[in-house]
């Protein structure tokens, strides 16, 4: 004998499970894995040029903070909605700089800057980086990187990256920066205006 009416609930829940699973599985696809210039690797290479060096003591900061561990500077990274790094890529980039900065991805730059007080630093005295959509060629890519500390301190560069053959692993080419060009800020200079 059925005690409690669970039929409609189960049906509703089953629909939610199936829909959400489909959405989730679809979202888990990675379209960069087989490319010569994976997006996450481009991000790491470009940010490596701009981010501060690791603390001098070289301590491992893998979440095992203690009183002796340095407090890492907070760095926010905002990419564009139409070329957003997936969660696997974001974790890879965060991990690449774990000993240098506390890197956090944000959806929009405006979310961590006080628009009414653009003269102030981003949230928690962090530094904001914006990465533009990457222009890919056959073996190279150009990425616009903008850095925002406050509205009077914004810089922008175009970073050119090339893939070079990797003697150790043919399937995993090395990405190197072959050019950095100063340009006028665009995206981040619009904050607060």
């Amino acid at each position, binding site marked *: 004998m059925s005690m409690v009416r669970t039929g409609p609930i*189960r049906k509703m*829940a089953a629909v*939610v*499970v199936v829909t959400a699973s489909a959405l989730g599985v679809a979202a888990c696809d990675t379209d960069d894995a087989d490319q010569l210039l994976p997006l996450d690797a481009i991000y790491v290479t470009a940010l490596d040029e701009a981010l501060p060096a690791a603390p001098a003591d070289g301590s491992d900061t893998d979440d095992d903070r203690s009183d002796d561990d340095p407090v890492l500077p907070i760095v926010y990274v905002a990419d564009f909605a139409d070329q957003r790094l997936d969660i696997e890529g974001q974790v890879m980039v965060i991990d690449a700089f774990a000993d240098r900065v506390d890197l956090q991805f944000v*959806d929009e730059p405006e979310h961590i*800057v006080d628009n009414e007080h653009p003269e102030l630093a981003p949230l928690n005295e962090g530094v904001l980086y914006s990465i533009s959509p990457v222009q890919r060629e056959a073996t190279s890519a150009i990425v616009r990187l903008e850095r925002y500390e406050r509205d009077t301190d914004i810089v922008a560069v175009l970073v050119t990256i090339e893939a070079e053959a990797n003697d150790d692993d043919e399937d995993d080419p090395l990405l190197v920066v072959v050019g950095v060009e100063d340009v006028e800020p665009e995206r981040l200079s619009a904050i607060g205006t």
Partner: protein
Amino acid sequence: MLDRIRHWLFGGPEMSRLIVVHCVHSIAEAAFTISLAGSIFFSVSPEAARPRVLLFLAITLAPFVLLAPFLGPFVDRLRGGLGVAIVATFGVRAMLVLALSQQLRTLFLFPLAFAVLVTAKTYSIARNAIVPALVSGRDDLVAANSRLSRTATIVGAAGAALAFGIYQLSSASVLLITAAAWYVLGAALALGLRRQIVRGAPISKEAAVELVKVDVNDAVASMMVLRAAVGFALFQFGFSLRAGGDPPWVLGALVAANSMGSYAGTVIAPWARRHADEYKMLTGALVAAAVATAASALFYNRITLVAAIGVLGCAVSVGRRAMESTIQSQAPHARTAQVFARLETRLELAWVAAACAAVAIRADTPVGMWLLAGFLVSMMVLHARRLSGISVMRTVGAAPLHERLVLRAETLARHGFHDEAYIIVRASLDAERELASVDDVVSAADEAIDVAHRRDVD
């Protein structure tokens, strides 16, 4: 003096062990929750995390959907039944948080954290199902659950402060190891529960009839609404506050407000029960939650947001007491572990389904508050409609039994409870011998259901 405090916190010997176990659980949960602040979840962007969270919420939902019908009977057949289930949920979580302590900065965070969530929900179902087996008096169920909730909230707040201190002084990984130690302690303490709990009896026919009473159904439905509101709020604001760049303390303030509201509810509920019946308590809880969220949506800022979540926490607590009181008074035979396990499963399903909706919707905080307010106001209106149906039935309380039963079946059918309408009519056959024939009753119910179907089609 100490004895009075001890009794206020832990009650009599029949409940004290479960309360101690639940307090240890609250401390462990606080440690687990605070440790997530050091996880990769707060470093990836909300938009990137959203599909993964949705996927794992759906996976969280699956065990309850698929296993719910079998869980109660299976647990009842176990020696020690729900006591064993509680020990198991502690043990599994100890292992999970130990594994998580090494995976906080990797994508294994998601499956491990949601596995902890599934076991926490299972614990919640088992714990709430166990209480009726430990108390015997007519009003003991409500009092026992109030005490359980109140003491755990107080101890949990102290546990959260301790956990925050550990997190500040060491790391999230160390905090998770302490959480594992608390879970192991909880499992050890819960072993004693097995001796207190006799094997569950099968659900009786009386309980089946009592559970389809409109009052009981309404109480459970109202509680599902409130639980869904909490699930929605947690994930909606968990995401939207992060995405909107609000500082982490705002989210912490929401969690604290919800806990304080819940505690306030344990104090308000007994007072409200003395001055009003269960319907008014449930109506009050729904109205308070709907008005608070609507006011917050209208005059949105951080203060109104925190206040609304506090009121929601209080409403859930009061609603919970009202539902238990309704079951106690209207369905005394349904006070079994198996019935409560099923009811709790429904409540948890509502929570998870609403959480899925919140993650999928992608609304910002003010819009999320409007959605929450709209949902609660709509449900409040439905609740009022159901109440009007109940009050109509009460006006004919002096009618002969068979007429009252038929009327009740008709009302149930109009509200879409067709199966229950049949059960009511068939149950009346045992009680009412002077009916002209079985066909009279069945045809009356069929007619009522036809009317309802025609109305649905129209």
